[in-house]
Each structure stands twice: as C-alpha cells, then as structure tokens.
C-alpha cells in the first residue's frame, strides 16, 4: 500500500542523539514489565538503529535461568513483534544476557560485578551502565544501597539508576526513600520514571505552549475558567490485584501520571529547554497546588469502585469479585478531585482530575475550558453559547482540537460550535513510539528532562497527604461509591462538578 510507505524524504533528517556504548541491567527481569514493555522498547530502539553496536542487556532476577533461557523467554513473549522482522531479532537477541541475582545477597552483587566486567570485555560497553529497578518497591532503597556498596554507582558519569513507580507510599516514605537513594549516588544519577512523560502527546503540551505565541498569553486565570484532566481505562485490575489492593487509583495513577500532566499543563515557561529549568518549574507549580478543601477533603474528592457490569453475553465481574481481591475491599478504582493552584497564573481556576478503571472508554486528555464571551450577541443554535475549549488528546487518537463558535449557515445570525482538529496520524502518518522507548533512550543518554526529580515527587505526595491521612484514619468520611463497570464512574463525581455548574466532558 503506497499510502502507508515511509516518507523517503524524512529518512535521516531527524538528528537522533547518540547513545554511548552501554550495558543496561534490568533487575526483576523475570517480571511482567520486562517482557511487556522494556525488552520490546529496546528492540524498537535497536530496529531504529538508535542503540550503539556496543550494547548489552543483562537481565537479573532470582530465577536460575541461563542466557539461553532468558533469550527464549523473551522470544516467546515478543513472538508477534519478532515475526515482522525475524532477522533483526536474530541480531538483537545476541545482546541479551542473564545472571541470577538477589540484590539482598552481597555475594550475588559481587558476582554481578564480575559478570558486568566480563560483558564489558565481550561487548566493549566500557563500564557504562544503566541499572533499571523493576522490582518490588520495597526493594528500591536496599537495591540502590547494594549497588552503591559494590561500587557500581561510583562513577556519576557512567552509572545511573532507573526507578519505577511508585516512588514511596506517601510523603514520609518518599522523603525517606529519597534520602536513601541520594546517599547511594548523585541526584543526576537517579531517574524516577513516569511513562506518561514519555508520551509524545504529553511532551507536545510543552511545545504547544512554549513554541507558539497564541496560547501562552491566554493560558491563565484571565481566560481559562477550568481545566479537566482525565485518564480513563476500560480494563479492570487484571493480574495486578496484589499490588493494586495496597495502592488504589490515588497512588497508582493520580500521584504520578495525572499529577505530571497537571504540572506540565500549569507550569510557568522555563527560561530554557534544560532539564533543571523544566523540573524547577514543575516542582514550583506542584508546590503551589492544593486540594480545593484541605480541611474537609470529602468536599473535593470522590472515590469509587467498579461493580459488575457488561452485558448478559459478556458480563464483567465487580472489583470485589476479581481474583486476589478482598471481597470486602475498600480500595478505590476511581478517583475524582478538585484542586487549586495558588499562584498568579491560576488563582481561583479549578483543576478537576479523574481516573478510573472499567470506565466507558479508554482515553486520556487535558481539557482547557475558556471563559464565556462577556456579552452574547447571537442566538446559539444549540440553546446556549458553548465555551471555547482546547482539548489535548493524550491517547488514543493522539492530537488536539479547538472548539469555537462560528456562524451557522443561513439567513439568521445564529452561532454553533465547530472543532478544529489536529491528529498525529493524519499529519505525520507514523505511530509515535511507546513512552518506554523514549524514556529508556533518555536514561541511557543521561538526559533527566522527562524524569521526576526528588522535590517533584515529594511535592506530589504532599499534595495528596490530607486525602491519604483521611483514608488511613477515618475512611468512612471518604466512602467508596460503587459504579457499574463500563460507565463514567459514580454519580457523586458528576455532583462534584455540578456544584460548580459544570459537567465532565463526555468524549
């Protein structure tokens, strides 16, 4: 099909940054994330020729696998991807190695050190290493400590650690974990990953705001009346009940992904495109953010939990009936809340944030609703004039749309809303990379721009501390409202906006 061929004039124009010779070490290599996200992302980088020829991936976990076992497991997990390009896989798989390691056992870490030196010799990776902690969060601190004790983080230019979410369970534990990891290495060696920041569309919010002059002058309380940030999933808890039961939607989605979208949407323009300048602005805006009612958080936060749903042909189980879930669980699978940002730009503008599982549609978006025109000169075809909206679609159907009023055709002077659309697919015709592709490359390049800094993580946890304390101390004040699977969440969430005369956007 001609229409789907790669644009031959595009080839080679993008100046990709060059990743230095490198060994990527994944702890937790037998886990789900490794074969679902990390190895596919590395294979994609390999196919795009963005990995150096001197590259090795060393998988580490407690299972007594050999290199061949690991390669076989990865081939099995990626079989559908490999069949499109078996030759590339043949070349890539030779770069995969495995070492049984328990990071809690010092002798294992010593053996790991030796294996890394051997790989340096074999693959010319020159002692340049990225350690990826895809292990249980309770081992983040001790894992870093083991690596530091073995001298593997000694060189700040040639060693770095990537830490998966969740970084802590609350403000106190995040602070404690930060203290531990910062004794193991310098801040610029620590890469706290949030895969939402790897999404093109999230990064595009910055470009849209700071590369155009038309948006920034109106990106404030004078023109914007409210902001909605939504991350909706159609899937349930699936096989993650063990983790999810202790986390819930607030820790799993809001504290990290949604808060990062909030920060990028609301931050001040950085002085330059520099990791520290950007992270300074994100940290500052999070430090200015607060729950709309910190003293009585139940007035600004709604928790929900999905119940049964679906159709008679394909019924869906409620959360409490999912395998591994406590039948009396009060873990929330849905959260909606209202926030304010106390600074000159956003004072008084409500930010409504919601996320949930088993909702009606899978989508993430940021919606900026502008103030209404001060005087309504025209009749509106739809009954009342529609406020201008800028909708930034994070996924799926990545793009943006701008809704504004135009004259409805005909002899009268009636207005009606129309949408001006931008779609990544239509404009660029090539799918954007998975977030992990970008973030793994950035970590190996030692570029921390799209990773969260210690103060950002702490500010994000501090923002939700009143809620976490309330859930801990008197959960009845923040009840879990049931909602039917594949609906848009509990009615109480609609009531949260109705109090302000608003509705959630129904995409």
């Amino acid at each position, binding site marked *: 099909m001609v229409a789907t061929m790669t644009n031959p*004039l595009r080839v080679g124009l993008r100046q990709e940054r060059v990743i230095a010779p490198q060994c990527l070490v994944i702890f937790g290599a037998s886990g789900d994330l490794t074969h679902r996200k990390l190895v596919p992302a590395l294979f994609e980088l390999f196919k795009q020729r963005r990995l150096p020829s001197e590259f090795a991936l060393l998988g580490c976990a407690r299972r007594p696998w050999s290199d061949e076992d690991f390669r076989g497991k990865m081939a099995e997990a990626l079989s559908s991807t490999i069949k499109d390009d078996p030759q590339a896989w043949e070349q890539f798989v030779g770069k995969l190695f495995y070492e049984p390691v328990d990071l809690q056992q010092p002798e294992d870490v010593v053996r790991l050190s030796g294996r890394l030196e051997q790989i340096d010799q074999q693959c010319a990776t020159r002692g340049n290493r990225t350690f990826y902690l895809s292990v249980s969060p309770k081992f983040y601190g001790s894992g870093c400590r083991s690596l530091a004790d073995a001298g593997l983080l000694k060189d700040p230019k040639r060693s770095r650690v990537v830490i998966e979410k969740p970084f802590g369970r609350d403000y106190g534990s995040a602070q404690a974990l930060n203290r531990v990891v910062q004794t193991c290495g310098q801040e610029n060696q620590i890469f706290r990953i949030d895969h939402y920041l790897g999404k093109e569309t999230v990064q595009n919010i910055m470009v849209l705001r700071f590369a155009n002059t038309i948006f920034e002058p109106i990106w404030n309380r004078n023109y914007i009346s409210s902001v909605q940030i939504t991350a909706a999933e159609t899937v349930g808890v699936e096989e993650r009940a063990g983790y999810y039961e202790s986390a819930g939607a607030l820790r799993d989605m809001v504290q990290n992904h949604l808060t990062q979208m909030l920060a990028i949407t609301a931050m001040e323009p950085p002085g330059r495109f520099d990791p520290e300048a950007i992270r300074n602005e994100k940290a500052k805006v999070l430090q200015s953010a607060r729950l709309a009612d910190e003293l009585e958080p139940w007035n600004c936060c709604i928790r929900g939990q999905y119940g049964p749903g679906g159709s008679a042909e394909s019924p869906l189980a409620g959360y409490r009936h999912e395998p591994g879930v406590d039948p009396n669980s009060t873990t929330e699978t849905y959260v909606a809340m209202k926030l304010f940002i106390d600074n000159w730009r956003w004072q008084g503008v409500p930010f409504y944030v919601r996320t949930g599982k088993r909702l009606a549609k899978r989508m993430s978006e940021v919606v900026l609703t502008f103030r209404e025109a001060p005087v309504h000169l025209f009749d509106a075809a739809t009954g009342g004039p529609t406020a201008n909206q800028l909708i930034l679609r994070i996924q799926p159907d990545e793009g943006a749309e701008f809704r504004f009023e135009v004259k409805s055709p005909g002899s009268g002077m009636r207005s009606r809303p129309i949408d001006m659309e931008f779609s990544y697919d239509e404009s660029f*015709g090539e799918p954007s990379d998975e977030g992990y592709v970008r973030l793994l490359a950035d970590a190996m390049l030692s570029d921390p721009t799209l990773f969260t800094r210690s103060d950002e993580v702490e500010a994000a946890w501090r923002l939700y501390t009143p809620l976490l304390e309330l859930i801990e101390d008197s959960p009845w004040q923040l009840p879990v409202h049931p909602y039917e699977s594949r609906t848009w969440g509990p009615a109480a969430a609609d009531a949260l906006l109705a109090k302000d005369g608003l509705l959630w956007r129904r995409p």
Partner: protein
Amino acid sequence: MSPQLTLQTPLELAPAEVPHYLEQLWSPEQQGSTGTGANTFCLLIWQPAWAEQQLIRSGRLPGPITGQQSAPLIAAGRQAVMDADLPLSTPPLDGSVVKAVADFGGQASAEDLRGQYIDPALSALMPRRLITLAPTIDAEQSLETLVAAYCPLPEEGGGTTACGDVVVLRGGHGALNEGLSILEPLLPSSMPAWVWWNGCMDEAPDLMQRLTSAPRRLIIDTAMGDPHQCLDLLRSRVENGQAVNDLNWLRLRSWRETLAMVFDPPQQRDALIHITRLDIDVEGHHPAQGLLLAAWIADRLGWTLVSSAATDDGTSALFKRSDDTEVRFQLMAVPTGQPNVHAGQMVGLRLIAEPENGQGVCVILCAESGGCMRLEGGGMANLELHEEVVPVQHDTPEMDVARLLGGGHDSTNPLLAAAAPLAARLLG
C-alpha cells in the same frame, strides 16, 4: 551575543617556541594558575577574510580585521558592488567584489585581530585549541605567531575551569606555508581535529592539501569558489572515506525539512512515486546548493541519472524513476535584487507529480526572502497545488560550524555522502 576577545593579550613568539610554550602552559605544574586544559577538540581555521581586508585597505570599512561576517562588512560589500558597476545580483563578499575593490587602491591599515575574536557559539563548546591561519594581502609579509590562553566566561556556558588556547599564524602565503611545520605538534592525536576552510576551494590548493590530510575532519562551504571544484572536492572526500561537512549543505536543512513535511501526511505520499518534473531556482550563477538539493531528492526517491547538460541559465538533466518513467530536471539561475551573502542560495523549488490515473500534484517551495513567480507561472491549473514558504536561516557561519561540532558529526553526513557524488555528476 557579540564575539569575545581573548582575555589575555596574545603573546608574540617565534614559531619554533610555540609548541614548547603551550606544552608548559598545560603542564600539571601550571594547572593551578591557568585552569585545566579542556579535553575536547582542536579547530584549525583557514581565515583569509579577503573581502574584509580589501575593504579596510580601500578605506570603505573601519578596522579592525576580525574575520567575522559583520553587518557593516556586508553593507560595505554591497556598496562596493554598486560602485564597481558589478551586476546587482553579485553576492557582497564574492571574489569579483574582492578583485574590484583591490583595483580601487588605497593604503588604509587596521589592527588585525583574526583568531583573537572567538564567537560565543564556538567558545561554548570549549575547544581545546583554536588555530587560525590568517593570510595577508601582502604575499611577502613574514610570519607572525601569536599565542593566548582562553577560558570561556561563565555566561558563555563556561563556569568550569576547562580552558583552551588560541594560536594565530599570520603572514603572506609563502610564510604561512613555512609555518605549517609547527602544526603537527599543536594537534595532538588524542583529540579530534577539525579544519574549517573558510575560503574558496581554489585559492590555496597546496595549503589545503597539507592541512586536510586524514584523520582531520574538513568543513567547507561549497558556496565559495568555483562550483566544479567545490563539488569535486566533496565527491573525492566522500569517495575516499575522508570526513567532510559542507556549510552550504547545512543551510539546506530548512528546505529538506519543509519538503519532507509536505509529504508527511500519508495521503500525500503517493505523489512521490509519480514525480515527472523537478525545477529549482537559485540566486545567480552558482548551482552547487541547488544541485545538492536535487541530488538528495533523486537519491531518496531512487532515481537514476540518464543525462545532464549545462544551459545558458543553469543545468538541465534527465532522471529515470524505478518504474523507468522519465523525470525532467531543470536548475535555473535567477537574478535577485538583494542577493544573499552566500552565492547560489535556493530561491524556489517545484515538484510535479502526474499519476496516470488520478489527480496531479504540484508542490512549490519558495524562499521567505523572495518570490517564485517563474515557478508559480502557468500550466498547473489542473494540478492540486501545495505551496510552502521556507524560512530564511539567519545563522552565521560560526553558528553553523558550532552546530556541526556540537552535534558530534565526526563523519560525513550520510545524506550528504549520497548526494554529493550525484551533484558533481549533474554539474558534469
């Protein structure tokens, strides 16, 4: 940001003393007082600045001689074009302007600070050593050798103690040739060395030959000098596997990007396999840049060159697509009122695609600085028209060189390597 002078007044030394002096300067015993020598790269610049030297000598430009492409220099060049009755489309620093100004006479003199001005774009990269070869108009002038240590100021991206040094070799052609013997010890093999030939390809072939031997990486500007020599040099470097980069090619980046953007939407890509005609307009009679762009398009779309011929106004050629259909190409020199400093810059491009069954497409790219009346004229009424304006680049040569050095392009850009031999063949 304006260029910075070295902090230290340059020290004039006998040529033979220079290597020893610099060795002492960066020795471990001296590092406390002078900072640490940056372990980055060395840049050797051939900096004749003929137009500037002549304009200053004729009294048409105040000194000092800096080697920078300043606005007063360009304005003085444009004035000289008019005073010498040269065609108005003559680039202001062209060789014909230099010759005309030399005939004007005059004996004004000015301080020669070439090599002592360091553009912030370059100093931000913390070069370990900048060596400037500064030939003088007076071919008999004896060799002067100047040396100074240099530390980037904090606001230039410095702030660390990594420092460099500048070395200036100034004199007549013969004296410079003799002075080259000190270069070898000044370019340590442990660091990459770049040679920026900031002059015409044909003005000192012997010197160029000696300076650009492998593994030194060469930066040239194919807008300077005879187009045949420019493209032949590019071709031979590419064919011999010697690293070469071209500022004229770099200046095409917005044209390549804009053209690629037109075909990014999937519904536009079909047109690429149905192209039957390519027209390129360039400023004046210097086709190198236009031919490089045509060669890049032909290479990317898999066309093979069947024939090419010089015409009164430029070059015409015939390509064949992979399906054996012919593609006609014409490059035309067009006059412009206010010519670019660089000769032969792109004015416009037109691609016509005519599928056998379907709507034909015409894509016109036009430089922001001028019009494309010729390309927009006639015969396209039944074609779907896409027009784009290509932004003008305002980067100085120093900024472009810094872009190359900072981008880690230590080998020839693969797109240039593919396009250069074909461009040379197009010119014949």
